[in-house]
């Protein structure tokens, strides 16, 4: 299956989950596990990088919604980097683009997140 998941920290310490390939009912559980790990480690900001994602389904959306909910419970946030219009469209047609903070690049996200206390 064409899918991989990598993690790294931004200079500010914000953890980033970078996804590549197809995020669907088969692969989304790996994203969920990774997010749970970061939540348990105490993260209150998580950035998900969808730049290299070529398919994103409702299961994956559900995982992100669950993650966002848990982050907001601790006054944190889960934001997305999504420059790909095809993937962004999935958020737009479901109205989820109004729920998530979605940035076009890692640089844009970096600036925005640093502005948030």
């Amino acid at each position: 299956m064409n899918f991989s998941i990598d993690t790294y920290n931004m200079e500010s310490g914000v953890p980033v989950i970078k996804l590549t390939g197809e995020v669907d009912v088969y692969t989304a559980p790996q994203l969920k596990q990774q997010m749970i790990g970061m939540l348990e480690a105490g993260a209150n900001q998580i950035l998900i990088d969808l730049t290299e994602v070529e398919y994103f389904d409702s299961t994956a959306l559900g995982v992100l919604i669950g993650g966002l909910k848990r982050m907001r419970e601790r006054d944190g946030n889960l934001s997305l980097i999504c420059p790909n219009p095809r993937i962004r469209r999935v958020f737009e047609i479901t109205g989820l683009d109004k729920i998530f903070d979605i940035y076009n690049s890692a640089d844009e996200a970096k600036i925005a997140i640093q502005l948030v206390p």
Partner: protein
Amino acid sequence: MDAQSEPAVVELRIPCRPEYVGVARLALLGVASRMKFSYDQVEDVRLAVGEACTTSVEWATKNNRADTDIVVRSSIADTKLTVDIIDSSGERREAPADQENDNEPESLGALLITLLVDEVTVTPINGGTHVKMVKYAG
């Protein structure tokens, strides 16, 4: 045979398990790509079929029917693609919200299908569900 009135049929049978949903998507990508669909419309078909199969897989998991198959039948007419997704995943009973999965991917999936194709019907059949979706090209 009259090519206009007799649609070509491509039929695929996949195991009702998460790792095979991508196979159905790939097949539909091939089918839709050879019709008069725009790039975005091909993507719509791929996503809609993926969502329908995912719903089948989720119900099969809930109903302990993961050993069943999904039949994905594409009927290709000139400007009309009909996709029948027939599962044996058991009855789709409304279950109480899963505490572990407090998101609602299934209703999101249904919403996506409605938005991505021109017509969709969901019919319970013996031991499963038949989802029929239609997408018009152009």
